[in-house]
């Protein structure tokens, strides 16, 4: 049985979740720093997690929290991959700015298949 208080809690939580999602999306679109893009993606996923959790509480179902936990695990994996890519960028281009001229004009082969023969 859901009452007015539950509806109010759901609407408040969804407002915060949507705000977090929009702010994260703006950060991904506008910013070019890889670390800030990573944080923005994590903020977006936090908004998703908050929405899942709120719906789970509203419907008195544990599936919402389970979905939020899975989304959080995906967020941590995204952060892991972006950290690895960021470390590679720092070693190769000495910067985290994706719009830097070195990264934009780079035409060398991918790092994983970079080979130089002795001849």
């Amino acid at each position, binding site marked *: 049985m859901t009452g007015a*208080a539950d509806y*109010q*809690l759901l*609407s*408040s*939580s969804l407002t*915060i979740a949507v*705000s*977090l999602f929009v*702010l994260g999306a703006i*950060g991904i679109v*506008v*910013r070019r*720093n*890889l*670390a*800030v893009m*990573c*944080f*923005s993606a*994590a*903020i977006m996923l*936090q908004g998703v*997690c*908050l929405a899942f*959790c709120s719906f*789970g*509480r509203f419907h008195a179902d*544990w*599936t919402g*929290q*389970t979905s*939020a*936990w*899975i989304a*959080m*695990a*995906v*967020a*941590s*994996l995204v*952060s892991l*991959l972006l*950290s*690895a*890519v*960021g*470390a*590679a960028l*720092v*070693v*190769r281009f*000495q*910067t*985290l700015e994706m719009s830097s001229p070195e990264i934009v004009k780079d035409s060398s082969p991918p*790092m*994983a298949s*970079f*080979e*130089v023969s002795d001849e």
Partner: protein
Amino acid sequence: MSISNTTPGVIAGCLAAACGLYCLFVGQRMVWRVAGAVGSGVGLALLWSELSRVSDWWRELQAESIADSPLFAICGLAAIVAAGLTVTATRAIVAATWFFVTLCCTAALYTLQDAQFLATTTLLVGAGVVGACLLLVIRRSAVVNGREETMQPHEPLLACVCGGLLAVTLLGTFHRALAATEVRDVGRLPGVVARWQERANEPAGQRVITATERQSTQAGLSMFVDHPVAMLLLMTVSLVAIVAAVLVVRGMESTAAVEPRAQRLQSDRGPV
């Protein structure tokens, strides 16, 4: 419990935490920074101990509905503001700090909605992400580019006051969740658990469990009993992501080892 009995302790804790944070962030010498870290830790510990004594006062802050509670409004507003500051920060290390504040506020929102397991996971993931980014990427980028990243705020006193207020709110929110207990009938317990129960002075056949314990049990059952396929898929994706991250880092190392050699070969050949 009268609020006047606990006010001096709360004020002393706030002052100690604020002074400690001020010395920690503004102090130029290592001695001041260490003293600030110790002072802020003592102040926050004092606040935590006082919060357990003002539980009645804290309960008055909570309305019947969670959405009407001032704690919910403060944490939600702080989460949105911190997210905005994360996105607009010019320095990556400042963005990392605000991102961690965002995660703390979001964890408080989870706690208010009786999702303590999710809140704990959020804090752990946030600490891991921020720690990895700070240690591996941002710090290395600053060292490579020859500039020193500092976290000194423009308005240190205002930052300490706002940080102290936010810390009090978050501590109170987490304390509310951790202090909630309930009695559950568990029937006859095994020998070892029964001895623990005797030591804890719990009534026979009943167990006093915290909300965090109940949440963790229910979350584990929901994840691994009700949704096993989703968990298996998640573990597979995790394995693939870890392998991909290792491959990226290996490629980075091979590139770093091969590029000087390629430059040496190019210089030996001379201009074409």
